[in-house]
């Protein structure tokens, strides 16, 4: 069997929706036992369908958004409204290395599960609290969603065409995703410290601060020169050509970036050295940048004669950084990604399967990591309550009857 980096780590996962689940998914694929705390009191958002209304047939297992973010995890059910459930969590904590949550500020405290309380039970526990604006400061209670954070952090202002309006950046949930990953890194660093010193800690992770740290260009511009960076679309402040160019076919494009004279020579060669490329207007990097609009139009005469994959192959062969702009279908079917094992098949207990993207790493000893179907609610109750905690069948049945394990 493959060795997995986090195979001896147990995570108690209270997270909801996107950011938190994406964080614990990394840990699960890296081999950690991630125990999702769920309840039958209310359904997990997005658990059954892709886009509401698009799937006519009811499904037996949870697919859709839930499946994209929760494969390889385990699910236990607990009704946290019952004091007995909180007692059960406290007993479970002795087996846990990391607790994750992204509730509104104060929910865990109200349950009597603040970091300080958990620390009394498990002194070296690591608790990661993820929130929109952080758990301290005057915004700590403000409601937060990814688009709001994008606007608040200044990233949204930066996203868009130079002559257009600002827009929420990236695919759905960009801000959630990058925060999730900053959280994974913080948890791993805290585990490293715990392994060395025996000391646990509390991690206060902020979406807003994650976004500014990961895209610092505008902050640097403002702090160094007091200027607000203009929206740049596909342009680069010093490199040209640097754009998406129209190809043959409806809404198909190839991205080209020539950072050096060598790249430019490759581009000229790939295009068959048309006469205009010898014009003094395009002779050096500065001239090309200054005359980039005209140059882009001339390059497009060549790209529109080619399919976007074909243009990419021809340009790369000539040593030019170039890439087809993939739509969702092309991404899901990309031969390169398939060959690399980035697309995975997950099998449910009835042998039916779904497909999903893997995570972006391949390790020489651990491969792509650990993959298991997304759990059904409470699928691992037996494993946790009986095998891990040593509770008796009667005890478990009793708690089920009282709707504690529920």
């Amino acid at each position, binding site marked *: 069997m493959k060795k997995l*980096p986090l195979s001896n780590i147990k995570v108690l996962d209270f997270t909801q929706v996107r950011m938190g689940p994406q964080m614990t998914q990394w840990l699960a694929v890296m081999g950690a036992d991630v125990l999702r705390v769920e309840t039958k009191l209310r359904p997990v958002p997005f658990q059954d369908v*892709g*886009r509401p209304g698009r799937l006519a047939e009811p499904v037996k297992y949870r*697919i*859709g958004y839930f*499946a*994209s973010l929760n494969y390889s995890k385990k699910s236990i059910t607990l009704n946290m409204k019952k004091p007995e459930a909180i007692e059960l969590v406290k007993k479970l904590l002795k087996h846990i290395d990391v607790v994750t949550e992204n509730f509104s500020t104060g929910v865990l405290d109200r349950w009597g599960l603040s970091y300080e309380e958990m620390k009394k039970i498990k002194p070296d526990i690591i608790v990661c609290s993820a929130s929109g604006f*952080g758990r*301290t400061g005057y915004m700590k209670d403000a*409601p937060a969603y990814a688009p*709001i954070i*994008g*606007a*608040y*952090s*200044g990233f*949204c202002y930066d*996203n868009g*065409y130079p002559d257009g309006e*600002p*827009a929420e950046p*990236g*695919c759905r949930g960009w801000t959630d995703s990058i*925060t999730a*990953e900053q*959280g994974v*890194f*913080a948890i*791993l*660093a*805290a585990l490293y410290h715990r*392994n060395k010193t025996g*000391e646990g800690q509390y991690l206060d*992770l902020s979406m807003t601060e994650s976004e500014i740290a*990961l895209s610092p*260009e505008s*902050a*640097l511009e403002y*702090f160094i*020169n007091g200027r607000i960076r203009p929206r740049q*679309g*596909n342009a680069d402040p010093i490199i040209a050509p*640097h754009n*998406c*160019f129209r190809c043959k076919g409806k*809404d198909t494009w190839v991205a080209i970036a020539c950072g050096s004279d060598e790249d430019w020579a490759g581009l000229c060669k790939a295009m068959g050295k048309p006469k205009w490329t010898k014009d003094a207007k395009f002779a050096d990097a500065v001239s090309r940048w200054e005359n980039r609009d005209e140059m882009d139009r001339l390059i497009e005469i060549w790209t529109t004669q080619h399919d976007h994959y074909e243009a990419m192959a021809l340009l*790369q062969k000539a040593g030019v*950084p170039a890439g087809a702009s993939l*739509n*969702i279908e092309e991404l899901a079917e990309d031969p*390169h990604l398939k060959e*690399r094992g980035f697309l995975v098949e997950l099998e449910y207990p009835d042998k039916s399967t779904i*497909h*999903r*993207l*893997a995570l*972006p*790493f*391949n*390790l020489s000893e651990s491969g792509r990591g650990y993959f298991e179907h997304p759990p059904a609610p409470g699928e691992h109750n037996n494993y946790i309550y009986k095998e891990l905690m040593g509770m008796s069948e009667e005890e478990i049945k009793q708690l089920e009857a009282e709707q504690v394990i529920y």
Partner: protein
Amino acid sequence: MNDGALAGLKVLEYGDFISAPYCGKLLADLGADVIKVEPPTGDSARQRGPFPKDIPHPEKSGLFLYLNANKRGITLDMKNAAGKKAFYELAKWAEVFIENYTPKEAKKLGIDYKTLHRINPALVVTSITYFGQTGPYSDYKGTDLIGVNMSGEAFANPAYEVYNTDHNPPLKLPGHAGDFLGGLNGAMCAMSAVFMQQATGIGQHVDLSIQEALAAMVCHEVGDYYDADVRYLRNREDRWEHSPKLACKDGYIMMNIPDQFWAPLMDMLGNPEWSKEEKYQTAVGRHFNLRDSQPHVIEWMKHHSVYEVEKLAKEKRLPFSIVRTMKEVAADKLFVERNYYVDVDHKIAGKIRFPGAPCKFSATPGKIRHAAPLLGEHNSEVFEKILGYSPEKLVKMQQAGAI
């Protein structure tokens, strides 16, 4: 004193521009001892602004200074035999190595996994590339723009003008979001591999693809395609439904209005007559008649300033933010309250303020211990203290162009 969570972790970085240096920065800011190797010409980020007063200077690049604080910097010419030998000695010292060259370039430089694994079998070799170590595109040249397009991110970027697909191309994310993301993912992988190194004594090769790191963000859209054959096109408008960006008199605001916020939103609008229509009285009705209600909301916003709307939205506890510029972000007292920014004093560039770490560690807060290194600043310190070279040997190496 170094009180970071990663104090004691030995890291060697031979990375250029953003992805590998950001990976090294994440480790260094939490206390790891990161030695950054630059070729004698320096990291290319040194040529990138912003520079104070826009005057280019290799020691004053804001981007370089942000990415390389807390690291020790040395110069080495990998084409020189003595330089290469010194590099391999450092590879024996290190627990983690970070690089961002294509597999072909890495091999040519002699920093490929096979070579390094032979020298130090316990080493975690973190390779951050645009397309990964295997597959037909593995030696393709990339940049942030290329990665963002090859991952579906540019196609999924929902700038409003994107709907005009005849006129506007797919849109990349601002700045170098893809490169930074690659660095972050590299750091997560490197740390994971370190746990296995500690448990088993074996190192491994981390193959991190920026294309995949970006594509992993599009997981919902790809899941919909696999599950239900949904093929999103660029001109999709469904995003507007729950998180419209709205134009006010003097700027833009962003709101998130899933159905549970309908009542407070109508309150804010003064419960207008149109909202009392039968079709808006149930959640289902509101969902299917969104196209009818939206123009009313848009119209109302046009007559109000962003600050008026902000005040009202706060009273009604609506998820809301003004689309802020960096000027407004910088003036926000939240980041002062949370002690977010770090101020660094650099020998040549002077005092510069940077964004800080996105996560507060209660036990190991970490900090900026020193500014980014000048080119070759720590040559004698590293070669003498870590490799035990004599000052005479260093002079000889300098004369031979090795450092």
